[in-house]
Structure formats: C-alpha cells, structure tokens
C-alpha cells in the first residue's frame, strides 16, 4: 500500500471506509493495482486530450456496495480499470444460454461506478441498453463482454449529460467465430466524456459495427477511443461516426485498427465526419491503422466541415428561415449513423434523444428511419 504522502493515499483510505462485506479480496487486489498505477495521465498517448487531474481528487463515498463480477483483470488493464474494480458498487453478471433469443434488453443503468460482465452463449442473441447517470460528478462503467461462436449482441449506449457530468465508459469485447457485436453510441453534452471500445475479433468471421454520434458543447470534452484487433481471417469491422462541436466544445475520435499477421481477408472501414459549429469549437479525429497481413481491405476517411451551403440555399429558396434550415441540416447530419440501427426500439430511442437534445421540434415524419 502507498505511503501516507502518496497522492493515491485517499483511495486506500476510502477503501478502508467501505463496509466490511464490500472489502473483498477481489476489490483489495484491484486497489493494489490502482495504488501501483494511478489514473492515466495526459503524457500517455491515449490520454493526451483528456486530463483526469480533477477526477483524481474525488474520493468515492459510501454507497450500497453489492457483488460485482470477479475475474482476472485483462492483460492491458490500466489504473482506471483498477479504480473501477475497486469502487464499483454494482453490475450485471449475466450468462446467456446458447441459442437463447432475448427480446428485452439487459439494462445497465443507475448511479455510481459500475462493473459488468456479459457472456452470450453460442448462437444466442441479446440486447444491452446502457444509460449513464446524467448528473454524475464522476461515473465509470466498465463492460467485459464475451460473444461465443455465432452469438450476437446489440448495444445502445446513451449519455445525455448535464454540463457538469463526468462520465467514463469502457467496453471490452471478445468475439468468437462469426460473432456479431453492434454498438450504437449517442454522447450528448457533459463536462467530460471518455468512451473506449476495445474489441478483439479473436476468431474467423467475427464482425463489429460502431454507429456513433457525439455532440460536444459548452466547454465540454468528449473523447472516443476505439481499438479493433483483427486476429483471425475474414473479420469485418465498420465505424460510422459523426461529431459535432458547438461553443468551445471539444471532441476527439481516435480509431485504431490492428490487423494481425494471418488475419487475411479482413474487411475494415472507418468513416468519421465532423461538423464544427463555432469558431472556438474543436474536433480531433485520427485513424490509426496497423496492418500486418497482405490480403486485406482497410478503408478510412475523416472529414471536417461546416454545413453544405448549397443545401442551405436550397432549403431557404423553398421558404424555410435560415435558422430552421440550419437546424434541419445539422439534425440530418447528426442522425445519419443512427438511422441504420437494426433494432427498431433502439433506433427510435437514439433518434429521439438526438432530436430532443438539438432542441428540435421536428415531428416524427421529419426523418427517414
């Protein structure tokens, strides 16, 4: 355990104040890792835009600590993973039987730090709805997902945060043969949002899709990091992401694709489009491709721009006032990745969130779904 002078000591103190039942061996081991590693700092490449300095001061308070999924930490687990494992109050621990087909989504909601484990059995299908706490001063939600052969999981994660909210999520998933993971994310507002999606396409034929929208506003930061490891042949990955930044909002999208030796016939595409709506707003989008196989298709593109002036004139020439025309084009741009969400309930929910957030009074007939 760290010395009394360590800046991490308050974590150790907070841990000792947990109810005895919560101070499990698993949590205590996580605390040891946390004290050794600390929270990530901006001198790490993956954290260069997001400074957790202010969060480092926050001490987790008393809460109703329940059992959380226990297991060996991932090989590349960092101090944030250790923090989450130490102080998570609750979490799903679900194993879905082979060939089951769940119509109702699993719900990962609630306040405080959360740690979840979801196993989807062979050829089973499931839905996962993640809703972050919009008022959280600091919330972390970590997900450990495993999809067996032929399994399929659709995820909708939304963050519709108040201006002071600081939210961190990480989804780590391992995909078996022909497994499909389809993740849709809607990140709206907040002071700090950091969202990692790390997917291991471990066996042949695995497929991952990300459909994402983030809207940074006020002085908020939304930082998205994805890492897809294609480790086996015939894997597919798709990322379609739109970023908007208003005011002095900042957005980051860092999309890393690693095609490992032997992952032939990998088919990967990453498309990021950004709309900067104010002179002080900023978005950084960076594809990172590492390709160690020769027979692969990897396409990527990032664009930055303002609204299409021809389209704006077209709408105004039909009588729409300029402000309404701008709002409509912005909304259409924002919704593009979400229109193709396969699950209808998820799709409608995502589109509704965006319309509400962008303060649009558009009726349901407005948008193609």
């Amino acid at each position, binding site marked *: 355990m760290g010395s009394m002078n360590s800046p991490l000591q308050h974590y150790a103190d907070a841990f000792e104040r947990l109810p005895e039942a919560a101070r499990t061996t698993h949590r205590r081991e996580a605390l040891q890792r946390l004290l050794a590693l600390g929270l990530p700092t901006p001198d790490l490449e993956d954290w260069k835009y997001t400074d957790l300095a202010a969060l480092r001061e926050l001490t987790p308070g008393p809460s109703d600590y329940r059992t959380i999924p226990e297991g060996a930490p991932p090989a590349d687990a960092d101090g944030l993973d250790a923090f989450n494992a130490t102080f998570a109050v609750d979490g799903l621990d679900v194993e879905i039987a082979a060939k089951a087909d769940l119509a109702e989504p699993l719900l990962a909601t609630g306040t405080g730090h959360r740690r979840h484990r979801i196993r989807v059995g062979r050829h089973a299908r499931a839905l996962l709805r993640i809703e972050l706490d919009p008022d959280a001063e600091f919330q972390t939600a970590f997900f450990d997902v495993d999809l067996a052969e032929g399994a399929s999981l659709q995820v909708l994660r939304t963050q519709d945060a108040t201006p002071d909210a600081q939210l961190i999520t990480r989804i780590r998933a391992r995909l078996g043969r022909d497994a499909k993971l389809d993740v849709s994310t809607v990140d709206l507002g907040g002071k700090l949002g950091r969202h990692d999606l790390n997917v291991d396409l471990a066996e042949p034929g695995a497929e991952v899709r990300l459909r994402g929208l983030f809207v940074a506003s006020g002085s908020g930061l939304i930082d998205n990091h994805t890492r897809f490891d294609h480790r086996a042949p015939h894997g597919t990955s798709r990322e379609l992401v739109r970023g908007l930044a208003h005011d002095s909002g900042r957005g980051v999208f860092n999309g890393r694709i690693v095609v490992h030796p032997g992952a032939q016939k990998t088919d990967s595409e990453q498309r990021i489009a950004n709309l900067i709506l104010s002179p002080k707003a900023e978005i950084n989008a960076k594809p990172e491709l590492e390709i160690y196989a020769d027979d692969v298709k990897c396409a990527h593109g990032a664009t930055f721009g303002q609204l299409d002036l021809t389209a704006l004139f077209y709408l*105004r020439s039909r009588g729409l006032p300029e402000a309404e025309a701008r709002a409509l084009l912005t909304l259409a741009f924002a919704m593009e990745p979400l229109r193709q969400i396969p699950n209808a309930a998820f799709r409608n929910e995502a589109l509704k969130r965006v319309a509400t957030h962008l303060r649009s009074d558009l009726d349901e007939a407005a948008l193609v779904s």
Partner: protein
Amino acid sequence: MLEINNLHARVEDKEILKGVTLSIKAGEVHAIMGPNGSGKSTLSHVLAGREGYEVTKGGATFQGQDLLAMEPEARAAAGVFLGFQYPVEIPGVTNLYFLKAALNAQRKTRGDKELDAADFLAYVKQRVKQMQMDVKMLHRGVNEDFSGGEKKRNEILQMLVLQPKLMILDETDSGLDIDALKVVSDGINAMRSKDTATLLVTHYQRLLDYVQPDFVHVLAGGRIVKSGGPDLARELEEKGYGWLAAA
C-alpha cells in the same frame, strides 16, 4: 410582375451578367435560351438570392418590391420559385417534412393559417399523383438516391405544393426522358394562369414543344442579344447560337 433593369452581376472577379433588361407580366411565359456559359444559371440564382453573387449595377423588382434586397426565404414567401438545375440531396430529411415545413413557413410569413398534418397529407398526396410519383417517396429523404428524372419531377412537385407566382425553371428539361418530360411539362402548364408567370431557362428547344412560350430571348455574353416570339426558338434549333454570338 418581374422587372429586371440593366442587371450586372459578378462571381468573384468575373463579370457574368452585363446589363440584362427584361419585363415579365402576369400570365406570360418567357423562355431564355443561350449557349453554355452565357449567364443563364447566374441570372436564375441571382433572382432567387443565392449567396456568392455580387450585383454591381442595375436591379430587379418583383411586384414592385426590391427583389434583390430580400432574403431567399422572403422571396419564396412572396411567390418566387426556382427550379434547380441540380436539385440538392438532403439525406435523412423526408420529402413530407420538407414540403410541409416549407409550405407552412411561407404561409406563416404571409399571415395565413398553417396546415395541420392530416390536411397537408391529403393536399400533398394529390400532387404526388399528379406528378405520377409513388406516394412512398414522401417518406424517403429529399432527393436521396433519386435518379436525375426523379429529382426534376420532385422540383415540379415542390412547385405544385408551394403554388408560387413566378416560376424560374433552370434547365428543368435536362436529364429527362420523353415520358418524364411530358409529366414535367404538364405540371408546369397546370401552373399557368393569368396570375402567374414563368421564366424557362433552357439550352434546348425540346421543352418549348410542350410548354409554349409567349416570348423567347437569347442570352449571350451576359446580355439579351435577341428577343422574339415562339418562332425564334425553332430558328435557334435549326441554326444554333453561332450566328447571334457573331452579331
């Protein structure tokens, strides 16, 4: 209805319109023909209020109002409609919403009562049928994945829905097969009345076989170099534009 007086306009440093004068009265159909690069599209865009054009001299009034001082949406509400040569795709926004929002925005500006969803749907469906389009198009994105011909039909549909007074149709006939040309022409003719006027901007005479103009003008080098009746269009079709440019 529309009075264009010695209109000069330029894009960046290039002068495109060099003194266009034209008077269009209610009830009339005028055709402006001319070679590529003569300034036909620039004239259409300047009249509709597109940014990027600088009017350096002269002006235009619409029903006595200074047209060039108005915002594009104000021109639309006053009754000016531009049929685009290249209609814009707006993925994600349905035609139904777009049409309703446009009509109601115009009605609001004019002080008319806005139409509710049910009334509007009945109103628009009738016009979709008139244009021989599938009503399912109302739930597709504006011009999204439309063929060239479908886009032009959609321009005329918008015109039928919005019921403008002055229709400026920029190369509406380009990209149309003969059946579509017939439907589009019928749409334009349906709008003809003693209270409306039409300005057809076209490179070819083909459209004028279906929409008979009262006057034909030749725009070349940024000026109207010749005006006449419907026969002028046929003469141009036979002889081309060369003899006029040389004049």
